[in-house]
């Protein structure tokens, strides 16, 4: 059984039909990429999975449990963490306070400290800046913080919304390398990206979303070689 199963979900903003029957699966231990242009519904898909938006049709199964009606704040406890679009860090709190909020649902002090060390090991730049106010970090550091914060809940499934957005190329490489590292420690990842090139490099499988519908789904290698994907999302004629 897949870790995450999204079955034919429909999501609306008022009357705007943003997701028109999206289905996808993520197997345990995988990195799956969801690519698509601006406004395709990638963020909406993630928001629906993590309970910030409830689908009007279809269902979402996580580890065999139906998530469709569960409020967002219960999902962390079930093992789903989110790195929101535009990082969504708490700009006025310190780096440390942000990370501690990531572990909000946990009570095991020792485990939390252990994970804090792990995050600082993964992102040494955060360790140097642990008492700095998060809003004054650079864009790349903020992305690292958002990722570190998500890791603090020891998620089984990590949802990431455009982690490379607005970052310099060097940092993009670093972020994707870290995504692979995180995956290697056993965390399953659903990665939403506009940077299809990078996203398909780290993923095993991929989905292409277009105006609220899944247009294509295949292995990452096959998608990289697909003529339409090459043309539309990789910018290769």
């Amino acid at each position, binding site marked *: 059984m897949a870790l995450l199963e999204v079955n034919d979900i429909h999501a609306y903003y008022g009357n705007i039909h943003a997701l028109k029957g999206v289905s996808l699966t993520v197997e345990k231990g995988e990195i799956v990429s969801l690519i698509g242009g601006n406004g395709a519904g990638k963020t909406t898909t993630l928001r629906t999975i993590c309970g910030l938006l409830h689908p009007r049709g279809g269902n979402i199964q996580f580890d065999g449990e139906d998530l469709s009606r569960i*409020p967002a704040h219960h999902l962390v406890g079930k093992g789903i*963490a989110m790195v929101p679009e535009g990082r*969504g860090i*708490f700009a*006025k709190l*310190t780096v440390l306070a942000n990370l501690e909020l990531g572990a*909000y649902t946990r009570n095991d002090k020792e485990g939390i400290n252990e994970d804090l060390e792990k995050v600082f090991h993964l992102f040494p730049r955060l360790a140097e800046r642990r008492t*700095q106010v998060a*809003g004054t970090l650079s864009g790349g550091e903020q992305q690292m913080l958002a990722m570190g914060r998500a890791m603090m809940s020891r998620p089984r499934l990590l949802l990431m919304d455009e982690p490379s957005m607005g970052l310099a190329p060097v940092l993009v490489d670093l972020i994707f390398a870290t995504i692979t590292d995180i995956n290697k420690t056993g965390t399953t990842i659903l990665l939403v990206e506009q940077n299809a090139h990078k996203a398909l490099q780290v993923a095993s499988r991929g989905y292409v979303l277009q105006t609220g519908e899944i247009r294509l789904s295949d292995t990452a290698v096959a998608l990289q070689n697909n003529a339409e994907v090459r043309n539309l999302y990789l910018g290769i004629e």
Partner: protein
Amino acid sequence: MAHMAMMNKTDEAKFDGRALVKFGLLAGVVATYVAVIGMIATFSQRQVVAGLLTLGQVLLVAPPLGMAYFSARKMAGESGGKILAAGASIGLLTTLPLIGLIILANNTNIRIMFVNISPQLVNILTFGQDSVFVGVLLLLVVLALASVAGAGLTLLPARWRQALVMGVASTLGIALMSELFVVILRERLGNNFVRLFFQSGVMRWYTAVGIFLIAFGFTLFWQWRGTQMRGRLQQFTAPRQKQVRWSGAGISGIILLILPWALGTFLSEVLNNVGLYILMGLGLNIAVGLAGLLDLGYVTNFAVGAYVTAVLTTTSQYGLGPIPFWLVIPIALLAAMLTGFVFALPVLRMRGDYLAIATLGFGEIIRVLVLSDWLASRIGGPQGILALQNPSIGNFFFARPEHFYYIILVACLAMLFVSVRLNNSRTGRQWMALREDEDVAAAMGIDTILTKLLAFTLSAAAGGVAGAIFAAKLGTVFPQSFNLFVSINVLSIIIIGGMGSIPGIVLGAFLLIGAPELLREFQEYRLLIYGALLIVVMLRRPEGLWPSATRRRELQDAMDLTSHLGVVHSEVISHGQSANPSRMD
């Protein structure tokens, strides 16, 4: 770096002749405005220094002086002569609209439209000179000198400037409250002593000079020795430091205990009002400052607390008791919490502006309810509820402001304690996360609905207690006391003091509630001054007068990032600052 240097240059280049004219005329417009609305004339009735200076004159020279100071700061780096000249021109420009005003007043019937443009005003603006020409010349000279002084301030080394400002501010402050000092001193030291320094309640010139010199000297001394002394305190051993801190707390405690008896009835009453607003400020701060929920209906909780107390302690026909006041306090608190909870339910999904408008409506609902015929048979409608029993312990009855002071002090201290604890708690962090980003907070596992309910409910509790004490203190309850201005006052205290900052709220309450009570002239212009103060604070110190550590740190970091000192320095500072909160618990 190169980029920054360039930006600086364009910034400086912006301050040219045109800017000078703009700032000068702006000062003139401000001065003219306060003259036209009658502030200068009203304030002129209050003397600052006997026979020499009135508050109206202070108000007249303040705009050019302040404007010259700010303009001169923008010219930093220019030669001294140039800065002083710019200052002088601002003063001269300020005079232009005022001269226009004088000409209009003397030659037209403008008083029909603007009742405050009176011969008396002209007399003030021309310093009582018979010849208008001489008077206008005098006005030119005085305003030019004031603005040269304002510009000159920027040329002084920082420590001298601070000492000067402290000196003038202390003199002005004491002068404004001289009547109170006279009353207190007369009681203790006799009439002859008072006469020596005051002339019918107003400072004599040498008193003013003396106060100025003392404050001036003390500030200089403190700058010279203060850091040394603080350094020495840090060198003390830990137990010795503790001793020093405890004795400091002990002395403050004793002062707090004897304060009402040292100040007398009138000042105790003022202090009580300040205390009630500190209580409400700390309460509203939970919703607005910590959780970021803009609540414009705080008066609701105040009214509920007051009416519950009235109904439970009155001996009139509306009474359900009477029950002892000490039992009523927890009931009022719970009633307010319940109200806060119920009113929070419909607005849980609202954010920002919408929330503010909805809560504004709640304040109106309460006002309409207490005035309504529907409830009049239970809570008296427009007639209010009279004859509340005084709180008592054994045979002792709390009747005078000096007595109620202690009840308010205890309530404030309790609320301070709760606020500090909440600030550093898990709940406090929930609120901060909620304030920053509701969705992300939910994604972190925070139940945002529950967190909001908790903020509204706890916030309401303090309002209920304040209302209960307010009702007991007055002995009566009237619907007129529960209007929008209560909400606005409390909110202004938080904004001006500093959102989320506990000392800021205390300062804000003294400034916005205490000061106007002492300065009758301000009463009429209270809202105008509030508005002006709010705008100035928002523009120049958006984090408030005494910001909380988080906000200060944020500002500090932002400054460090843009300074050339680089990363190393910013880390030293942020480490140093983060050490403080942890030392507190």
